């Protein structure tokens, strides 16, 4: 193993990102903390508009500016603060140190370039190799993701959805990045193809000891490939812990609501318990806890004060007024 400067592959602290539009300021991220140890996978789970993709784009410093502004916070990649990097330095980090897999493989590829050229492009950019060598490596990458190398000469439209996503993954892994950000990588795929792609990502990640940020809304995928989970709501992590903490010792009412909303495969007659209401408008967030208007356990204090982190163990924490140091160990919320 190469020596790492920090325990964490990526370490984000107190990140605040706003989109300043004509119609007001959208508070996309509100003091987000996120850490991933080397070689581990973190699942970032939340609903549309919670700030999942903004988090991914912030790490790459690809927030569209204007209107997006990173107001404050630190993003450290293996101990080095990305906030202090120039645009030129970021150019050599993107695709080399950090890569991103986008949600929709149908639009992430260039339709007028062959598949092998698209993979070779990032190899050529980041490694001192000739064009011929980079094409050769591109074909090897294709084989790695389960596509015959000779198909590299084809164009994206000749590939099915699952194969396109494999190509996107090949591009992302081509330079052996330290951190891979996967933004809903299998949402656009059918379940049997999703199973194939997830299995492949898991194997490649282990082979290259890549750290991964898995952005998803699917707790099933999280249970399958993640080591730890951060639940994001209205731009802040409301609960974080390892798989067992989150799945077996759920504390936050929102996390609990997410689990209750899922149809249960074992008990098909069980009525779904949806979370009432909708996500708050991010340009007009509640003064206290952002989840308060939808919470069945809301108290007076929730309306006026933002909850602080309460730790259950070294890793597992929750931001909720229901808990204090004294009662956090006592057990999960009563499921009604």
């Amino acid at each position: 193993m190469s020596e790492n400067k920090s325990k964490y592959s990526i370490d984000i602290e107190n990140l605040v990102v706003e989109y300043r539009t004509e119609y007001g300021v959208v508070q996309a991220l509100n003091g987000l903390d996120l850490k991933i140890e080397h070689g581990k996978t973190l699942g970032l789970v939340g609903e549309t508009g919670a700030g999942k993709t903004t988090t991914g784009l912030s790490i790459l410093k690809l927030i569209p500016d204007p209107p997006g502004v990173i107001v404050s916070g630190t993003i450290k990649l293996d101990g080095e603060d990305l906030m202090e990097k120039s645009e030129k330095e970021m150019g050599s980090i993107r695709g080399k140190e950090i890569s991103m897999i986008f949600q929709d493989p149908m639009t992430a590829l260039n339709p007028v370039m062959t598949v092998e050229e698209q993979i070779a492009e990032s190899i050529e950019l980041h490694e001192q190799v000739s064009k011929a060598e980079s094409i050769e490596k591109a074909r090897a990458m294709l084989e790695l993701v389960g596509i015959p190398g000779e198909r590299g000469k084809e164009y994206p439209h000749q590939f099915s959805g699952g194969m396109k996503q494999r190509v996107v993954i090949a591009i992302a892994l081509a330079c052996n990045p330290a951190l891979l950000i996967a933004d809903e990588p299998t949402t656009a795929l059918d379940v049997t193809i999703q199973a194939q792609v997830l299995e492949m990502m898991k194997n490649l990640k282990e082979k290259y000891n890549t750290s991964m940020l898995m952005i998803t809304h699917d707790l099933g995928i999280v249970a399958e490939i993640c080591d730890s989970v951060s639940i994001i709501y209205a731009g802040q992590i409301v609960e974080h812990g390892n798989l067992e903490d989150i799945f077996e010792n759920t504390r936050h009412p929102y996390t609990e609501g997410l689990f209750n909303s899922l149809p249960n495969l074992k008990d098909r007659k069980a009525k779904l318990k949806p979370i009432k209401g909708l996500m708050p408008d991010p340009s007009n967030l509640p003064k206290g806890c952002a989840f308060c208007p939808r919470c069945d356990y809301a108290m007076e204090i929730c309306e006026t004060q933002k909850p602080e982190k309460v730790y259950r163990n070294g890793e597992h924490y929750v931001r909720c007024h229901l808990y204090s140091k004294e009662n956090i160990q006592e057990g999960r919320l009563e499921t009604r």
Partner: protein
Amino acid sequence: MSEEKDILLDVRGLKKYFNTKRGLLHAVDDVTFTIERGKTLGVVGESGCGKSTTGRAILHLLEPTAGEVLFEGKDICKMSKEEIRGMRKDMQIIFQDPFSSLDPRRTISEIIGEPLKINGIIKDKDARLERVLELMETVGLAERLVNTYPHELDGGRRQRIGIARALAVNPKFIVCDEPVSALDVSIQAQILNLMKELQEKMGLTYMFITHDLSVVNHFSDDIAVMYLGKLIEKAPAEELFEHPTHPYTQALLSAIPVPDIHHKRERILLKGEITSPINPKPVCRFANRCVHATDRCREAEPQLKEISPGHFVSCFLVDDQ
């Protein structure tokens, strides 16, 4: 057991082919099933398996190439255009994408009121508005939204509009084409609960098309699995999940990511991808991805067979048992 079943919809040998440059695309190929009144049939399968086309051919939004669609005993395929229009009051559809299935230039009240107007059910404007408000209340839309436009609303509310519009004409049967796929889980649960309540209250019959297997298990009485235009397995929901018999159904069920960290299972990873439905040969269409495939599967086409009451499978493997 011998009790007469009240069959609302009886589909026999339904086919829908499309002429393409590369040949005849068999989107739906000889599909046969029934749905009982007041029940839900879930139809699952991967993109391109023909599940949406089946739904549309039943409603005659697409002209079937062959086959019979008996609705309350009458064959829709033999009806005149006039008669079909009359039938539309009984058969409605809820579309997948609440962002593109609503006219952006019409207000909520116009969208929900349109089927009432077109079908000449309520001609008086004030009376129509009254019915629209009643429908909005039924699906849980606040009265104040009556004059808003779709773009002002979120996905969950838009899907409620789609449901209200389908309910406006008091239908007996609704094709639900991936009604919750575009929604977040917490909103998805709200809409599924609403649809279930409406079914109980109004005695609705649903054909529920989806690719989400945990949703279909929760929602359906019977489940039909489609693969490349063919119906390959149909069974009561519980039976299908407990005894999946077709190798494709087994692979499909084993591929569902389960949100339980103690869940252990043997995953059947399928090789390759779905093949082309253009000019298919009369052999088992799943054979090239199937681990159990024998020469027989590549030479002849299996037929749907009842292996236990209500459980139909089309696979040569069941013949050998």
